[in-house]
């Protein structure tokens, strides 16, 4: 991005500062095919290729592994088994030692990696893999969580309980009460670029890994453990991912570890890029949940007490299931105040792939539970669900009934703007009139029914593991005034690098194209957190700003001394610096500083203030702040087949003082569609042997362009600046828009409900495939006939 010709020394405003709509820094490279992903890098001569050999039973002990025919297949160089792991055969990201690199003695899901073929070509490795003969003693396998007991069944990690007031008593004493269960499905990430790692051996114990990962530091640690070498021997680099969505937070460890082991063993570069099917079978997904709920409420529909059990299919190991199921509980309130609440999680062990992070990280599942409860109450009292939503919102700021703003985890909601968001959206989308129009339409249409729903979102921002809320950055200013920016965040398409570069450009008051964005590498910024939890810009933007400020402070000290002016008379103007009465080009000042031996490089650092969390007590302030939004969707369903289309969606979503509205708009639109896909057509389907049968885009259906709402209005609510001093008062926008997709699920439910005159709650589970919609229609029709 270094283009010196564009500098305008008289500019009133730099090009590309904060709060401007900058295109993605790699947009030109994306559209020309010149953006380099790991599989596009030139391979070192002699590069070998790996392919995983996967378990063909869901649970069992391995009696014998015979890979002799694999070894003798054309092009095969080696076959790695668990015994070939020189260090620890474990890649458990939370240190629970429950996830081997390669299965050792037992297998716990269909598709678990048992061996890894290393061959001269990827094709040879793939073909050879099929020649393995592995015999098992099969054990009973737990595939579904439907028959498990959330209290007594085996868990992969300790559960969490959130408790405020006395939910059971409140429910028992409530004028009305009901209970039910909801199933909400998992989700495949379907990043377009699958997992990939390339390891290049170095001298001594060294190895360099290029890996499509959101968490280079963790890859570094895992590779170090697997090789049995210190972290300093392992360098991990990633310039960009072709999508991550949480699927590359921990799941890249396996490929990186195996590539590194083979690379060190054979002194050759090794690349592992699984086929899409293997990627989908062998790596984790969003957790599916069974949510049991019981709620007590009054005749108006005001919730008095609620009791939740969130049981999740975690798979065979913990991975991130602990924090994921925790976050489900942290969001079981969504935007609602529960006077009395008990919420428990059950991270259940199953013989399926270990589920992992996915945009929202359990939060959306928690919110879906909250919205189901709202819907149940609405049907019970015979009101529009929107009325019940509004009735139960957290109190507004400064409300005289100030006690309606404490969450189930005892954090006070201080920045609540949901009332205004909902009011504005309700108005702009013409909710009331359309509700009447839809009723009239449905009265005259037997087969096609319309539905409408407006759902809110409140999403907690911060890693709930408090120590992850730190970040580092490395800023160099070169003698020509150009800036090299590096930070611990990773670019997966979300525009993080663009935003952080805008922050640095703003800080130095130089044009954006003077800031070079560089690949994330553990060698430049150490001990980083995953780029996750929507925190990328909040943390790394702050760290980069801090780095830039250190250099700026040194420049100011230098200029004050050299030109004998007070510090406050040194001002950074666009591409120049005013020192007393004169203006000096930024690059010139840098040259002078260099000649005076001023350090022009800085390591920036940031840690989020205020947050703390006591998991044992279930109390604290896990979130620095909340992000809010709402969406309203209208759908048409076909009551003969369950097929549907989304007629219209209106979104109002909060961004704080947006650093880049164009990028934020993309996050909101994309997040909504992804959330809609999760709740509609994206269905994971295991057969009775525990085989995932939806393991490719032919069988697993993410939304297409033609699944977008026919009318799609998205507005950024940037009127409220962030309540807390976040980076330029912007707000995180990665995950919060994802649950906006809930409005589609509830609109479908509303359309289904119309077949029984809105008297019966459809209890529509997710994903609401055409099949589930049709079956719900049939159920309601039958129930209505019975009642009539």
């Amino acid at each position, binding site marked *: 991005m270094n283009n010196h010709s564009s500098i305008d020394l008289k500019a009133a405003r730099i090009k590309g500062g904060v709060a401007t709509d900058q295109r993605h820094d790699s947009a030109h*490279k994306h*559209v020309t095919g010149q953006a380099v992903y790991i599989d596009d890098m030139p391979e070192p001569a002699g590069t070998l290729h790996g392919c995983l050999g996967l378990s063909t039973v869901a649970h069992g002990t391995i009696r014998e592994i015979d890979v002799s025919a694999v070894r003798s297949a054309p092009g095969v160089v080696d076959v790695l088994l668990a015994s070939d792991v020189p260090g620890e055969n474990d890649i458990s990201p939370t240190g629970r030692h429950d996830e081997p690199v390669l299965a050792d003695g037992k297998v716990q899901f269909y598709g678990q990696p048992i061996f890894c073929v290393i061959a001269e070509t990827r094709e040879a490795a793939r073909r050879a893999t099929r020649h393995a003969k592995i015999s098992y003693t099969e054990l009973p396998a737990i595939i579904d969580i439907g028959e498990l007991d959330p209290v007594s069944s085996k868990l992969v990690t300790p559960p969490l309980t959130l408790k405020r007031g006395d939910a059971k008593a409140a429910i028992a004493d409530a004028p009305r009460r009901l209970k039910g269960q909801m199933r909400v499905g998992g989700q495949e990430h379907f990043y377009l670029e699958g997992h990939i790692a390339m390891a290049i051996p170095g001298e001594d114990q060294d190895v360099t890994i290029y890996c499509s990962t959101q968490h280079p530091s963790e890859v570094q640690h895992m590779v170090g453990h697997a090789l049995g070498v210190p972290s300093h021997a392992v360098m991990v680099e990633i310039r960009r991912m072709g999508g991550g969505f949480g699927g590359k937070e921990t799941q890249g460890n396996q490929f990186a570890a195996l590539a590194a082991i083979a690379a060190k063993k054979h002194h050759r570069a090794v690349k592992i890029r699984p*086929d899409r099917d293997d990627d989908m079978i062998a790596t984790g997904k969003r957790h599916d949940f069974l949510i049991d709920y019981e709620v007590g409420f009054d005749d108006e529909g005001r919730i008095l007490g609620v009791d939740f059990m969130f049981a999740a299919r975690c798979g065979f190991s913990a991975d991130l299931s602990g924090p994921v199921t925790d976050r489900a509980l942290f969001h079981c309130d969504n935007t609602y105040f529960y006077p009395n609440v008990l919420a428990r999680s059950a991270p259940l062990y199953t013989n399926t792939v270990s589920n992992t992070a996915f945009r929202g990280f359990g939060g959306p599942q928690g919110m879906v539970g909250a919205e189901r409860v709202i819907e149940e109450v609405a049907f019970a009292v015979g009101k529009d669900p929107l009325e019940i939503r509004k009735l139960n919102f957290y109190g507004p700021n400064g409300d005289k009934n100030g006690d309606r703003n404490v969450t189930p985890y005892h954090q006070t909601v201080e920045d609540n703007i949901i009332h205004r968001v909902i009011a504005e959206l309700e108005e702009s989308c013409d909710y009331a009139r359309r509700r009447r129009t839809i009723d009239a339409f449905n009265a005259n249409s037997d087969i*096609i029914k319309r539905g409408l729903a407006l759902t809110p979102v409140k999403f907690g921002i911060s890693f709930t593991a408090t120590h992850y809320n730190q970040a580092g950055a490395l800023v160099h200013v070169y003698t020509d005034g150009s800036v090299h920016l590096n930070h611990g965040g990773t670019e997966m398409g979300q525009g993080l690098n663009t935003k952080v570069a805008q922050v640095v450009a703003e800080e130095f008051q130089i044009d954006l194209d003077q800031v070079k964005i560089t690949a994330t590498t553990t060698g430049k910024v150490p001990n980083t957190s995953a780029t996750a939890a929507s925190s990328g810009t909040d943390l790394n933007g702050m760290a980069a700003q801090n780095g830039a400020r250190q250099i700026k402070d040194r420049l100011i000290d230098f200029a004050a001394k050299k030109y004998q002016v007070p510090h406050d008379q040194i001002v950074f103007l666009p591409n120049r610096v005013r020192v007393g009465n004169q203006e000096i080009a930024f690059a010139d000042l840098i040259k002078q500083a260099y000649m005076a031996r001023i350090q022009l490089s800085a390591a920036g650092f940031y840690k989020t203030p205020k947050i703390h969390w006591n998991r044992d007590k279930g109390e604290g302030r896990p979130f620095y702040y909340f992000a809010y939004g709402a969406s309203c969707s209208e759908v048409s369903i076909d009551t003969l*087949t369950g097929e549907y289309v989304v007629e219209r969606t209106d979104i109002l979503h909060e961004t704080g003082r947006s650093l880049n509205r164009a990028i934020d708009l993309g996050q909101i639109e994309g997040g909504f569609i*992804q959330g809609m896909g999760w709740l509609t057509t994206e269905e994971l389907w295991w057969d009775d042997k525990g085989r995932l049968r939806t393991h490719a885009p032919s069988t697993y259906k993410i939304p297409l*362009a033609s699944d977008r709402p026919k009318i799609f209005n998205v507005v950024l609510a940037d009127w409220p600046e962030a309540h807390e001093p976040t980076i330029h008062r912007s707000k995180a926008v990665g995950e919060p828009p994802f649950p906006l997709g809930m409005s589609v699920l509830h609109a479908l439910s509303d359309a289904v409900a119309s077949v029984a005159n809105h008297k019966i709650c459809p209890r529509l589970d997710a994903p609401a495939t055409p099949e589930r919609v049709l079956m719900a229609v049939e159920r309601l029709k039958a129930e209505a006939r019975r009642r009539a």
Partner: protein
Amino acid sequence: MAIKTRTEIRFLLNSETVTLKDVAPDETLLDYLRLRRSLRGSKEGCAEGDCGACTVLVGRLSDGKLVYESVNACIRFMGSLDGLHVVTIEHLGGEGGNLHPVQQAMVDFHGSQCGFCTPGFVMSLYGLWMRSPEPGDAAIEKALQGNLCRCTGYEAIVRAAKAISSYGKAAKDPLAAERSRVAARLQEWRDGSRVEIGIGDARFAIPGNVDDFATILEAAPKATVVAGSTDVGLWVTKHMREISPAIFIGNLDGLQTISEKDGVISIGAGVTYTDAFELLSKRIPAFGPLIDRIGGEQVRNMGTIGGNIANGSPIGDMPPPLIALGATLTLRKGRKRRTIPLEKFFVAYGKQDRLPGEFVEAVHVPVPAKSAKFAIYKITKRRDEDITAALGAFYLTLARNGMVENIRIAYGGMAATPKRATAVERALTGKPWSAATVEAALRAYAADFTPLTDMRASAEYRALAARNLLRRFFVETQGGKAPLQVSRTEAA
């Protein structure tokens, strides 16, 4: 009949003439581009023709005219490229240089986020813009059915697609400028010779004409016949099956004719969905919306109706409607031809009435009389680019007195083969075409079908939805104002 033989394929790759002798029958275009040529702008996202990250354009002569179509390089075999023009993302714009209008629009409208799918989107939009410079929403969505994006939610991409023409005129595009030169080159290459490449278990042939194909196949009855490779491509990329010896027939003009005579449309086995669309949807309108929902644009540009029949899949979308229309199939072995009712072709799961060395040459489709009612309903989890859970096709003629004279109902996804609902037909035939008759006939479904549960749908859903399709067909024959199907194109 002596035929000239070549031992190399030749094609244009962007601006370069490529001549290749060392090509395996199962070498894909994507691997060739990425591994052999280090042209790594085209990406592999799925290797099964579903995600579109590998989309390139292929230029071919169709009735003497040069047309460029989007295809999936991941399931396109090199052997099928003889005499064609391959255009990849590297042919458009470049670093430092001016971007192509398609690319500039994508940049300005923020159409990329992670960027991995982007080259494929650019190529699909490029193909669309060349033939339809100012497309509407429906045309854009159709052109993008075969391109998955997980980041943007597509909105920005559609905005970009609508704006492309404000950045430049399709007529001034570099490909348009060199059109006549390329067409002349491709024409010159059509020398009618047979191509034979490889030896042993890695060989393939490209017949010089249909007679030559018949000769080759008769001599090598176990050969894999590859037309559009939208199915065979996956045998290689997913199942790693050997396809040698392969016979690539995608270039045979003699199989690519579609014409109507005496009320019968004859479709050569090599006619793609795209090529069949115009005539078929004009003469039998129910085919329009069906074909629009088969695969994505790339698959429709490659896949053939003949292949959809020949592979015998129980979930192929063309056989049920063709069976309901009473279509017949011409099979050919050497010089011998026979014509059978299409429904007799499907013997059992994985078994068709095709002799060794025999091939599907054409399907003949009677155009229904104006008075007949004909409808096709395809049910999928996702509306577009999804494999059928169940598909029903209904053909009905009524006697003057309103009695059912002739009804043919055929389903896909309900049995091991595409299958007639004969018991249901019997329950309807000769009865008044009324709601009561239809409701009574629904009981006969149990005699016709015992559907399975799989990842696409449960047995219960299939059974229920299949019955409901008959209800829908009945309601649609009655007219009325209320909408009967959800529709993508009508605005709310």
